[in-house]
């Protein structure tokens, strides 16, 4: 037993553990020094945390799309980031035309709901088409094939939007009722937009959980994700359930697109890439295939990315640490893949068959 274990440890393992330990040490020492300096006030930390929670909510919504599809097809839908972008983009046209016509100013609530509806519908329709045209014919092919197709579809959608609408950045309309801040107590306050993002995302995630847990279709989705042949023996139309899964993930991505635009107020054809890959990171972090994990992973990544750079790096004297937030996020992805490839809640998945 003992000798067996010693034999299994090789140079790469040792090296990776050293790197991991060094990073951990860096985080601990950095955080300690930053906090000791007392350069940042409690209000600043609070703002960063709330921002992190809001951006994490968006990641979580997108991550659910990756994880639901993976759960059912064991396939990573790399075009999901473009499903998100498409919803955001077409939603932008709805929002900005309502803004120009004055409709948004008069009926802000209705205007926002219409924006969501347009974005979610766009994403859903595209995802369903994508499944039908690009993925379904390849079901049963080796796993690399749909993966490559997904990457191809991702580029296809990006270049379609680029071709149709150009490469310039578009400024998202500023919606009056979600501007400004809400005071909490003393100097603490929260931006209205962040409240909207966090609450809207929480509501949708709650609805998703209820749907998957308690509806007939939701239960069938879980059954199909375990065993397609046995699910068919129950009378479940597996193809229909797969389409529903794509549609559900896409609707959440469309909604995430609107929320993302509310926060960052910029629309471009490549806007899906970074949030998409972050959400993918979040899904892997939580344990891909596991919806609770995707939500947890999204929130964690959002907060980690928001607080991390300042907390870990500022005290070490690194200038403009916030520029390094993406580096931090992707370092975490690599670390998770090396040390815990199943993610936080991934035990259950590792047991299921591919």
């Amino acid at each position: 037993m003992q000798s067996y274990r010693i034999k299994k440890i090789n140079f790469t393992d040792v090296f990776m553990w050293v790197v991991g330990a060094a990073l951990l040490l860096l985080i601990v020492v950095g955080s300690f020094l930053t906090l000791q300096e007392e350069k940042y006030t409690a209000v600043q930390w609070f703002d960063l945390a709330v921002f992190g929670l809001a951006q994490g909510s968006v990641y979580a919504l997108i991550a659910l799309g990756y994880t639901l599809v993976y759960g059912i097809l064991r396939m990573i839908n790399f075009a999901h980031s473009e499903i998100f972008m498409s919803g955001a983009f077409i939603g932008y046209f709805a929002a900005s035309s309502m803004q120009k016509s004055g409709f948004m100013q008069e009926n802000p609530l209705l205007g926002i709901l219409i924006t969501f509806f347009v974005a979610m519908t766009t994403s859903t329709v595209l995802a369903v088409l994508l499944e039908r045209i690009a993925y379904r014919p390849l079901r049963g092919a080796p796993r690399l094939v749909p993966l490559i197709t997904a990457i191809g579809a991702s580029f296809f959608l990006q270049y379609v939007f680029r071709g149709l609408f150009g490469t310039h950045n578009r400024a998202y309309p500023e919606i009056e009722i979600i501007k400004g801040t809400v005071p909490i107590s003393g100097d603490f306050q929260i931006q209205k937009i962040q409240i909207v993002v966090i609450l809207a995302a929480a509501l949708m995630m709650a609805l998703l959980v209820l749907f998957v847990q308690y509806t007939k279709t939701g239960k069938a989705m879980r059954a199909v994700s375990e065993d397609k042949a046995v699910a068919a023996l129950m009378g479940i139309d597996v193809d229909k359930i797969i389409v529903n899964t794509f549609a559900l993930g896409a609707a959440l991505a469309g909604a995430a697109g609107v929320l993302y635009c509310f926060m960052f107020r910029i629309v471009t054809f490549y806007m899906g890439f970074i949030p998409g890959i972050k959400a993918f990171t979040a899904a892997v972090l939580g344990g891909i295939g596991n919806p609770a994990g995707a939500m947890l992973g999204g929130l964690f990544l959002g907060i980690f990315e928001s607080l991390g750079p300042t907390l870990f790096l500022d005290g070490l004297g690194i200038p403009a640490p916030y520029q390094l937030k993406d580096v931090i996020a992707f370092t975490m992805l690599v670390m998770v893949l090396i040390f815990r490839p199943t993610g936080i809640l991934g035990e259950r998945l590792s047991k299921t068959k591919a």
Partner: protein
Amino acid sequence: MSLLSIENIHTYYGNIHALKGISLHIEKGEIVTLIGGNGAGKTTTLRTISGLLTPREGTIRLNGEDLSKYKAHEVVYKGISMVPEGRGVFARLTVTENLEMGAYSRKDTAEINRNMERVFSLFPRLKERRTQVSGTLSGGEQQMLATGRALMANPSVLLMDEPSMGLAPVLVELIFDIIQQINKEGTTILLVEQNALMALGIASRGYVMQTGQIVLSDTAEKLKADPTVQKAYLGME
């Protein structure tokens, strides 16, 4: 007219010719058993009947209706349900949820509730465990669940693939008692078994399969007395 009749079925896995012209028929109210050694094609026969595999040749008729145009999930609506080999319970779903999936093809809530009560009275153990995640059930309990789940569809024909596999003798007895009871209540049963002695004990007729073909078919009594069957499947010399 037979309830289920299969004529000259040929099923392939890629180039592997797994079923080489299978014909069999089952009358309403019967228990018919299909016995044979490993790899004979018993599971393939059941998977072909249930629509999971499409035969390259031959016809499957239920009450005279050709089933070949239906997909697996549609065959359930026609009245055939299956207890798959290895049970195939949804491990992460609870006992109740598994049973609900069995009733997926049913719309009438009152009927579903009645079926659920019936399953719970056949298998009181399942009632005790109804909120438990199925992956944590014992093998015997999983077999009960798979059987109960198939009954939730209210089938006219129940296909059972090796229900005794991996069970202790007491549990095998219990499952076989239940099979007889289900049959008495009106469900026709096609029972695939390696445990030929027990299967022939409750069946009225049997078919013996070997390498994708049916080599013998007779009443259960005569098969039990047949020297080749005794030698090959009943472990007698």
